[in-house]
């Protein structure tokens, strides 16, 4: 979205905060719930000031129990509310996994459409902030595999603002993955703009030699890689998926039909990760266009390492470019 007079420059964290504020203002059924979302404003301050302005009835500090948070959010949704639940860190969503997978995801279908579950689960995810165990994971594949859920992840403040608006407006459960290492990156947000569809990917840099696909935290990394590659005379197109379920294969396909090569980048482990699904489907769709196999850059099949190793562990410019070189060598 181009800058207009109504645009302001905000870090992603603040864009999310403003988006939540807007939702609370606009729809009295919107509730915010989670651990420490009240006075503290969340450990990342995404809900800063909201309880003060909207009260404890709308911005709810919950007991320390994630299954309880999601289970009661489901009940509130059945009663007509639109809960936006915060999970404090990626690694702490698993106690709620049963409620998400067996209840939240399936209840609309179970009821033959008679009930709707407009629940948003915000999860700050990914690494790069030097944290201890369980605070740096990227579990999106574990949700994308599950029908009934939608999964999205913004890469910049504008998308953070608008995609959260759209997720809250959606009548389906949405897992909203926030790239925590990008919380403090600034960007323009036009709160008066008319946003594009939630589940559409965006070509964020055009190129001709190879397509880089990423989402959330890795979009910036890919843009940097594309800039570096340009200096070496390689023209990389970068697609920001924005949505992980559904995946916008059309946009990726169009790009790959142009470039003939695809590298998928994410922080999550490669094995059974998003890159696998993209590689499988894109290869099927673009079999005769692909001049190289789809390559994947991502986490290893190992627990997220201690902070002093994360720089080596996380996909970075070098690892992306190495994969680019390998793909171009075909």
């Amino acid at each position, binding site marked *: 979205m181009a800058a207009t007079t109504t645009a302001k420059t905000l870090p992603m964290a603040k864009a999310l905060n403003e988006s939540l504020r807007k939702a609370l203002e606009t729809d009295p059924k919107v509730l915010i719930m989670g651990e420490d979302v009240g006075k503290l404003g969340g450990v990342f301050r995404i809900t800063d000031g909201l309880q003060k302005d909207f009260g404890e009835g709308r911005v709810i500090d919950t*007991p320390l129990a994630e299954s309880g948070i999601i289970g009661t959010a489901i*009940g509130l949704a*059945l009663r007509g509310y639109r809960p936006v639940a915060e999970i404090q860190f990626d690694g702490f969503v698993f106690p709620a996994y049963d409620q998400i997978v067996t*209840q939240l995801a399936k209840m*609309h*279908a179970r009821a*033959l*459409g*008679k009930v709707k579950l407009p629940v948003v689960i915000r999860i700050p995810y990914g690494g790069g902030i030097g944290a201890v165990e369980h605070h740096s994971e990227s579990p999106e594949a574990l949700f994308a595999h599950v029908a009934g859920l939608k999964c999205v992840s913004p890469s910049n403040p504008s998308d953070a603002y608008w995609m959260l608006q759209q997720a809250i407006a959606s009548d389906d459960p949405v897992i909203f993955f926030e790239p925590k290492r990008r919380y403090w990156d600034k960007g323009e947000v036009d709160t008066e703009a008319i946003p594009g569809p939630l589940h559409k990917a965006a070509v964020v840099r055009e190129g001709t030699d190879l397509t880089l696909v990423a989402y959330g935290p890795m979009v910036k990394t890919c843009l940097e890689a594309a800039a570096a590659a340009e200096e070496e005379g390689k023209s990389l197109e970068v697609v920001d998926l924005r949505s992980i379920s*559904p995946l916008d294969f059309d946009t990726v396909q169009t790009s790959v039909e142009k470039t003939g090569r695809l590298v998928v980048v994410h922080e999550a482990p490669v094995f059974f990760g998003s890159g696998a699904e993209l590689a499988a489907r894109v290869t099927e769709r673009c079999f005769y266009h692909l001049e190289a196999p789809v390559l994947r850059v991502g986490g290893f099949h190992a627990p997220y390492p201690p902070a002093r190793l994360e720089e080596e562990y996380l996909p970075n410019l070098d690892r992306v470019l190495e994969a680019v070189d390998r793909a171009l060598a075909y």
Partner: protein
Amino acid sequence: MTVESTAARSKPRRSSGKRTTTSGTRKRSQAAARPELVQLLTPEGERVEHPDYSVDLTPDELRGLYRDMVLTRRFDAEATALQRQGELGLWASLLGQEAAQIGSGRALRDDDYVFPTYREHGVAWCRGVDPTNLLGMFRGVNNGGWDPYSNNFHLYTIVIGSQALHATGYAMGVAKDGADSAVVAYFGDGASSQGDVAEAFTFSAVYNAPVVFFCQNNQWAISEPTERQSRVPIYQRAAGFGFPGVRVDGNDVLAVLAVTRAALEHARSGQGPMLVEAFTYRMGAHTTSDDPTRYRKDAEREAWEAKDPILRMRTYLEKEGLIDADWLSGLDEESDALAQRVREAIRTMPDPDTMAIFENVYADGHALVDEERARFAEYLASFADEEGR
């Protein structure tokens, strides 16, 4: 170390209508002042009093409870038969738990909301859910065939204990709305071990949510006796979370009604959650797939047959002269008609359309579902083409 229930203080709300005082036949319950098990009608069909709980019902209401139990049992027996005949894939019988379900179901107001397990056929009956609708998921034509909002009766939930949290959240919403209705979460003795149930206790207590936890302790979780779940009575669990718990004779429809009313009133009046443990017995198998002879003795079942919830009510009504042979044969006819209606309904119940696989996965649609639906339709059409050739 026992935990006293404090439920007693909130008196049940009385429904209007003319009442017969049946105190002539009432005796004080045998145990000491506040017996652990709340009972108003003994297995022998004698009315007894309880210091904290009472009901005062019209003859019509009393007969109504009996009728509900009889019809529910008949429906349940029919469903079991239909499973044997291959019309249902499975059936979870409520045999023996009629009083627990009808007593609690009849304590509800229309605007209360119920979260059942998979066995609450009697509660569904009280809510006005068409019994044939309950059969859909057991036949395998759907995963829950009714609109939860039309009777304020949620879909059956199979993942043990998870509905306790939904009930708590719903009740938090009720409180937010300033409504004075209540919510009931049904679950079993086995479910009491699930973390979700404990979390529901915590959330409901902390938010003072108007929810009644109604645990049917039917002594068994498939093959495991209640001692595998707890070494103290389950109703005692509540006190440690800061709300009252009470154990009621779950085979005594009057006591269940009285206690559930009191619990609902407790919730409605802003005192928060309450736990009711209905002490009852699963007289049949866990489901039609189960073989209880592998794990329990006939003698146990026989002992409980003597406490049958329907028999004792019949004895009482007959003793009180509230029913006679005519009335009973009318009920028999009604039962037969219900059974026949269910049989017919199941035989004409349509199989779902294949493409229903792709319906209602999302409320707002999903590109992949659309793609897969289209491809699968093409695939199916290719056979039609072949056949058409």
